[in-house]
């Protein structure tokens, strides 16, 4: 598949994964790759804090992470663009109630706590309304591609199952209609797919496999390639490298240097073995294409790092196409 095709296939890409797997950076890199194919990309942040925007070089003080309005944050040379906005559950609920004739009462309702009662009486309502808002953006053609950075997993499944929960609780009315329409979008792979993100470690991989089956079976959501973040690149010859008196004697190194080399080598060898075991396990258990994004060996992510990830993403998708 050409990367452009992935972005042409479904307008909505839902990026989901456990905390700490680099979901936000992945969403940003996907948005960048899509914008660089000339598309208008909308990057939607659901959790409302510590989002991808600063990775594009935007001053953290210069925008509101919970800003409900679209804000342009990146222009690609070929005319593509990335806009960001946040759709927090509370904002989605307020927006929805306002558009259903509750506008004058909203403040009073918020103050009296009735919003909490509504949300409690109808499990999943807030998450449904977030997804409903995304569906609205999708059908109104707000962007060519909509990348959704979801809340951390366990949670992600909860989030994606919200329309089902609401359909069970509400038997009639506009809310049920909203749930039905949202489920239609989630179940149509030409409109929406989920990209699951992990790192090559045991816990996130097992959770990803569980989430993958649950998302497909219970929500009917189509799964795009699994994205494995932080993959250690292979170093030629490292697995056979041994540091001992024999190998270091001729190299004229200080003992401290030998020590550093030895620690780094041993650690990298062990992590590589663990990583490969986990990648094999993933491949055996989950019959989905995989995209490997390289470990960046940096602790902060800016446009340079995002470009590396976006390039790796495109290359990986192309390679799979040619296989």
């Amino acid at each position: 598949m050409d990367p452009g095709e992935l972005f042409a296939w479904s307008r909505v890409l839902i990026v989901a994964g456990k905390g700490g797997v680099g979901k936000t950076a992945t969403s940003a890199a996907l948005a960048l790759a899509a914008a660089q194919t000339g598309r208008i990309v909308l990057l939607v942040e659901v959790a409302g804090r510590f989002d991808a925007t600063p990775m594009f070089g935007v001053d953290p003080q210069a925008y509101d992470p919970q800003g409900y309005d679209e804000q342009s944050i990146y222009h690609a040379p070929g005319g593509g663009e990335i806009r960001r906005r946040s759709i927090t559950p509370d904002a989605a609920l307020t927006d929805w109630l306002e558009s259903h004739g509750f506008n004058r009462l909203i403040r009073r309702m918020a103050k009296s706590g009735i919003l909490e009662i509504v949300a409690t009486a109808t499990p999943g309502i807030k998450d449904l309304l977030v997804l409903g808002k995304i569906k609205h953006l999708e059908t109104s053609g707000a962007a060519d591609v909509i990348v959704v950075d979801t809340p951390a997993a366990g949670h992600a499944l909860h989030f994606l199952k919200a329309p089902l929960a609401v359909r069970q609780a509400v038997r009639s009315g506009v809310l049920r209609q909203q749930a039905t329409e949202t489920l239609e979008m989630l179940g149509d792979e030409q409109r929406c797919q989920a990209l699951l993100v992990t790192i090559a470690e045991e816990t996130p991989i097992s959770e990803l496999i569980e989430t993958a089956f649950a998302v497909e079976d219970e929500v009917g959501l189509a799964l795009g390639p699994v994205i494995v973040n932080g993959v250690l690149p292979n170093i030629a010859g490292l697995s056979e490298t041994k540091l001992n008196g024999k190998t270091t004697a001729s190299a004229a190194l200080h003992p401290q240097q030998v020590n550093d080399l030895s620690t780094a080598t041993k650690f990298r060898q062990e992590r590589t073995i663990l990583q490969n075991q986990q990648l094999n396990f993933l491949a055996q258990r989950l019959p989905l294409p995989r995209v490997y994004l390289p470990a960046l060996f940096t602790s902060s992510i800016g446009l340079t790092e995002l470009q590396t990830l976006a390039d790796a993403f495109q290359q990986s998708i192309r390679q799979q196409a040619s296989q």
Partner: protein
Amino acid sequence: MTTTEPKYDHLVTKKQVIVTCGTGGVGKTTIAASTAIAAAKAGRRAVVITIDPAKRLADTLGIDQLGNTPTIIEGPWPGTLGAMMLNSKATFDHVVEQHATTQDQLEQILNNRFYINVSSELPGTQDYMATEKLYQLHTCGQWDLVVVDTPPTRDALAFLEAPKVLTRLLNNTIYKMLVSPRPLVLRTVSRAAGLVVRRLSRVVGAEVVDDAIEFFQTFQGMEEGFKQRSAAALTLLTSEDSAFVLVASPRSDTIAEARYFLSRLDEASLTVAGVVVNRVLAALSASAADAADISRHLQDTPLAAAAQALTDHVKAAAGDDNRIEQLMVYAPNATLIKIPLMATDVHDLTKLSHLAELLTSNSPEETTDT
């Protein structure tokens, strides 16, 4: 004289409640389990409440989803180690049972759909029930230390504020109106609210609203008990007997979130007694420039691969110390514990036990004059 700096040892041997908090993916549950093991090693009876442990960790601890009471884990320690996985719904049912005045009231509540939503779906229910469970275990007399692993959240205070969610529901005017025996529309005070309720019925369906009204009417008489219980749990959590431990990783994004956590805790006048930075890469003596020198020196030799591994390692670890230092500015009185990134995942008891040793031995020396 003892410094104000509490060593992790001190927390593990003296505190009665330890709450681990932090964002997801930093190894919070593992640290919580190891903390309880450290206490068992020190001869105490320690129990850890986990929220959503990874499968293998749950297997190691012998806890399954159904049990809502601690399982005893045998191990080479003089104390007792217990572990459990929180079942929010069962815990909530238990609280209702305790406060219900009649059998009828109990059954009506347990079968009410609004209650079923409250006890399983309300944001913060997990947090709320974690505090309830910790309070139960703390007061039952079987445990010297209760370690609670909080649900992953982006807000440090969610855990403390959770009990207030229900109290707030019970205190609000709509609730008071709903439980009033008089028809809604006749009450002038709540005319606007009555309007809201009728409109809501049209939007979310009348049965949803009816369920809520029934719940609040049935709940009458139990509010006081619930409020007192919440207040007692909060008092315990904010007392000297309890300690908060923040778990983070040295990555800049988690450090930013951890800093936010600390500032939120500070706003609530809560002090963090320990900061555990997990997954820290082994510090090497080589700088980036040194690594580059070594790489050049070893170019085209059999050790070129080792030099590449060193270069990557140094690059990845660069700035860790700096970021950790910045984080500690927000928790000046906390003990800092750095836990190295292990080559393999920590799931079995031997590795958890090793981690427990790292936690307690890693503490900076107390400057005391014994």
